[in-house]
């Protein structure tokens, strides 16, 4: 039992620093969401239960409008599939990484929001840390941040008067950093550049509310067409490269854990 609790503690302390930016972002967004439900006339039970059971930010905001409109369960289902379709890509990317983690796998898949996926995919988990528990704690902490933020917003929403304008940028900054981490690790940048360029073109062509699905389809088509050059050219090995290339990966891991300890190591 002693070694098990030690192992869990290690996985938790390794996972926690990665989730600190998400704590800031999820509390901000979660509280905003709770306030939004509050002013839309729902008690705090709604954001509380919805943040636990749905755990997918953007669709939860949309659900508020659905609850205020006419009853249409099929449309609610179809809308959810469209807004959350990007999760399909996350699943395909995590097929291997979630292998062999035991019963935790169910929860890892259930809680695979944008942020959990991004951290669990890019994090360089040290050899002596249990991979499955690391990903479990990342997911659990994110889930907890979102749930507590939404609930607090629902309860105290109307009382908060702190100028948080611009705090939502923490999520943008995090995805820029994650994009850069991927960029610095890969040898061939084709896929990264395609992701940026295709999404931007689709945003301009289809507008903010409708660009995700066309962008996903276009990315899928172009990557499929480029399969032969990318597989022979070595871009597809970007991730395998990362696992093999211990030096570079280790560097980044140390940086993150040091900054996570509040600078006392420096």
């Amino acid at each position, binding site marked *: 039992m002693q070694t098990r609790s030690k192992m869990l503690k290690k996985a938790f302390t390794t996972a926690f620093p990665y989730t600190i930016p998400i704590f800031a972002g999820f509390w901000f967004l979660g509280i905003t969401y709770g306030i939004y439900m509050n002013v839309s006339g729902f008690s705090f039970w709604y954001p509380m239960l919805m943040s636990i059971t749905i755990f997918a930010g953007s669709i939860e905001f949309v659900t508020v409008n659905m609850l205020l409109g006419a009853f249409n369960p099929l449309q609610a289902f179809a809308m959810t599939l469209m807004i959350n379709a990007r999760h399909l890509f996350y699943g395909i990317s995590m097929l291997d990484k979630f292998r062999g983690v035991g019963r935790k796998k169910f929860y890892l898949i259930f809680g695979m929001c944008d942020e959990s996926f991004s951290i669990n995919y890019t994090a360089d988990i040290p050899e002596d840390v249990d991979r499955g528990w690391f990903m479990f704690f990342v997911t659990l902490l994110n889930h907890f941040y979102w749930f507590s933020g939404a609930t607090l917003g629902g309860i105290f929403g109307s009382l908060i008067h702190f100028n948080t304008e611009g705090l939502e940028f*923490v999520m943008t900054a995090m995805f820029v950093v994650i994009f850069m981490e991927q960029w610095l690790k890969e040898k061939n940048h084709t896929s*990264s550049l395609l*992701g940026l360029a295709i999404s931007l073109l689709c945003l301009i062509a289809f507008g903010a509310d409708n660009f995700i699905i066309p962008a996903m389809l276009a990315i899928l088509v172009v990557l499929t067409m480029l399969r032969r050059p990318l597989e022979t050219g070595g871009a597809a090995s970007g991730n395998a490269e990362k696992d093999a290339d211990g030096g570079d990966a280790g560097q980044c891991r140390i940086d993150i854990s040091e*900054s996570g300890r509040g600078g006392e190591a420096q």
Partner: protein
Amino acid sequence: MTLTQQIITVAMVVLGTAVTRFLPFLIFPAGKQTPKYVQYLGKVLPAAVFGLLVIYCLKDVSILTGSHGIPELIAILLVIMLHVWKRQMLLSIAGGTVCYMLLVQVVF
């Protein structure tokens, strides 16, 4: 909407979200060999998806009106510089966010 209708609506959203998350794992179970094409996608998709997520975060930025996306541009450049310089995730994110908050609250 009655309470029952509300519960059904939320349940549909929960179900829809779970479908998008579980589907790949149901189609390609761990016990079976995943098709080579899907393995390839699993390796090249994440880089493109991170690009998509960056654009997704910026989707509501208006270039033609308001502050013309200048605060976003400055803050992102700072994030990139900080990250190239120190490569410490938390520093880059905190620096960029504080810079952005100052820009939108004080400057623009």
